[in-house]
């Protein structure tokens, strides 16, 4: 048996032992996410417009992880809208950074690995890098959005007379509590994933001036920064959207409720 299969089996058993039914669902959602990503990359490979595919991918992933893993309600709806808005803002910013810095594709240092392949693949690498950078953070954005929107909704249910500003304020407070750990999670995941590159810098003997201008370094650095920006940006967006959604969807309920009381 291969290492991956055995590890997968261990994870499966552990998730069921410590997570029960919810663990089973989590494991299969994980698998589903992987399959969706694989299909997305294959569709891009076949030449479909990348931004369109990316839009469908983000909506699908957000829907699966929010509506399927939880259920369709105000909390998940707010988290869904916030995720999409944060992602849209990010796409715009990532595109600007990648195109002004020419950060797409492979670096000169990677030629040892890539020279055996044909690199004239005809797929726009600027757009593809926007996609990979979004992919690295979208799961964290979804996680943050639901972590903020659900206590906000619960707070509203216990105190329905809270104003929109008060709701936003409480959402921001929840968000700030998890900002440090979320930023750390995404940062260390990225650092760990690209650790070999950092080993390399010590072997290359580049001057400082060369390092901070090299595509190799700037690519990694910018991706890490976008992880932090995404996490931070999703907090006020989620707090605002959730408060707005709670107030607009429950306005009718409140009134009918009060008229019923009369």
């Amino acid at each position, binding site marked *: 048996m291969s290492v991956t299969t055995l*590890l997968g089996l261990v994870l499966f058993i*552990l998730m069921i032992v410590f997570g029960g039914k919810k663990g089973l669902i989590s494991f299969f959602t994980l698998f589903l996410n992987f399959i969706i990503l694989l299909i997305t990359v294959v569709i891009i490979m076949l030449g479909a417009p990348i931004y369109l595919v990316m839009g469908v991918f983000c909506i699908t992933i957000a829907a699966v992880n929010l509506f399927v893993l939880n259920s369709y309600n105000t909390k998940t709806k707010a988290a869904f809208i916030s995720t999409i808005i944060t992602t849209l803002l990010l796409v715009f910013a990532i595109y600007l950074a990648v195109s002004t810095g*020419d950060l797409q594709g492979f670096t000169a240092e990677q030629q040892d690995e890539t020279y055996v392949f044909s690199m004239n*693949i005809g797929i726009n690498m600027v757009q593809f890098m926007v996609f990979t950078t979004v992919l690295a953070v979208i799961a964290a954005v979804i996680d943050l959005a639901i972590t903020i929107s659900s206590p906000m909704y619960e707070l509203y249910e216990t105190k329905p007379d809270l104003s929109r500003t008060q709701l936003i304020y409480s959402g921001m407070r929840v968000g700030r509590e998890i900002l440090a750990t979320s930023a750390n*999670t995404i940062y260390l995941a990225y650092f*760990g994933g690209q650790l070999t590159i950092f080993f390399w810098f*010590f072997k290359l003997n580049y001057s400082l*001036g060369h390092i901070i201008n090299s595509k190799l370094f700037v690519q990694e650095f910018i991706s890490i920064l976008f992880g932090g920006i995404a996490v931070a940006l999703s907090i006020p967006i989620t707090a605002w959207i959730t408060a707005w959604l709670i107030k607009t969807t429950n306005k009718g309920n409140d009134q009918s409720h009060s008229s019923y009381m009369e």
Partner: protein
Amino acid sequence: MNQQPFWQRPFTWIFGVFIIFFIIAMIFTMHNERFYNIPIGQIVSEHTSHGESVEDDHHNKDIKYKQHFTIKILNGSHRDKTVDINHNYMKAQVDSERFEKGDKVLLHTDDAAKSVYIIEKKRDTLVVFMTGLFLLTIIWVGKRVGLQSILSLILNTVAIIAAIALHSTNPHLNLFALMVAAVIVSTVITLLLVTGWTLRTLVTITSTLLGTFVSIGLMQLIIRFTNGEGLKFETLGFLTMPPKEVFLASVMIGSLGAVMDVAITIASGMYEILRRNPDISATRWALAGRNIGQDIMGTMTNILLFSYLSGSLPMFLIYLKNANTITYSISMNWSLEISRAITGGIGIVLTIPITILLMEVWLKMRGVKR
């Protein structure tokens, strides 16, 4: 809430100073050529020829463009000289870049400034701008917590880079042991910064380290048991040392953040429940912790999975476009990434019972004190 008008709050002032600092730094990077040892040139005129269609053996179509630049050198012994160079790029820009008039580039020149070619685009302004945007967003959203987060990110980086630097200057030191030390240091620093110094912090530190190390140990055991079957260590990019050691170190660093996140979420969630309901039975309390854990284990593992896979996507695409089958491309590019993510997931799931158990111990100890 703060009732002062916004211009009187100290935060606004700190923020303003930050913005001014970054604007000055950006203007500096636009005029800093004289501080570079590498020759830097600016493209003063540019001519791009009509594209020429090319097709490779796998029927991938791309368009090849030839560019001709006149570059004015801005620093060094060839200052103010102009040179003419030719440059090629492909429309997809997979491993080539398109330059435009006005771009500044790092050059390679010989003594006579005859054979000149472009090494890199000058990207320092972008680096400064993005660093500023990152710091300002985090501080604007997080205020004091934002500063703490940035401090912990910097200290984490220092700990890990220090381990790498120590290893590259003293290669006889065990890399994995150095990384273990870096992980312990950065866990302690981060948790002290984020949660402050209480007995509960000791619980989260212990459960984070236990969760991380046990999952890494498990992975090592499985690799030994299966002789690393299916793991393509040779595909680990930029290799300069024993791949298995590097791989295990990278798995450990990668899962650390997620495991820490889970430990904090469960410990503070359980503490909150205890505060609201001090008479809760030990079993009910543990069950509440288990519920919190169940809710987050899937999403946390997913964060790791997507983050790892995103880094290897360009190479995966190249494999697919070079007429390799999907299964072969997955096994060559994703065997390591998927194993990494699963090991992180194992760490995440194991941290749940470890944290619950330690919280129960903490409650007993607190009870004895009282």
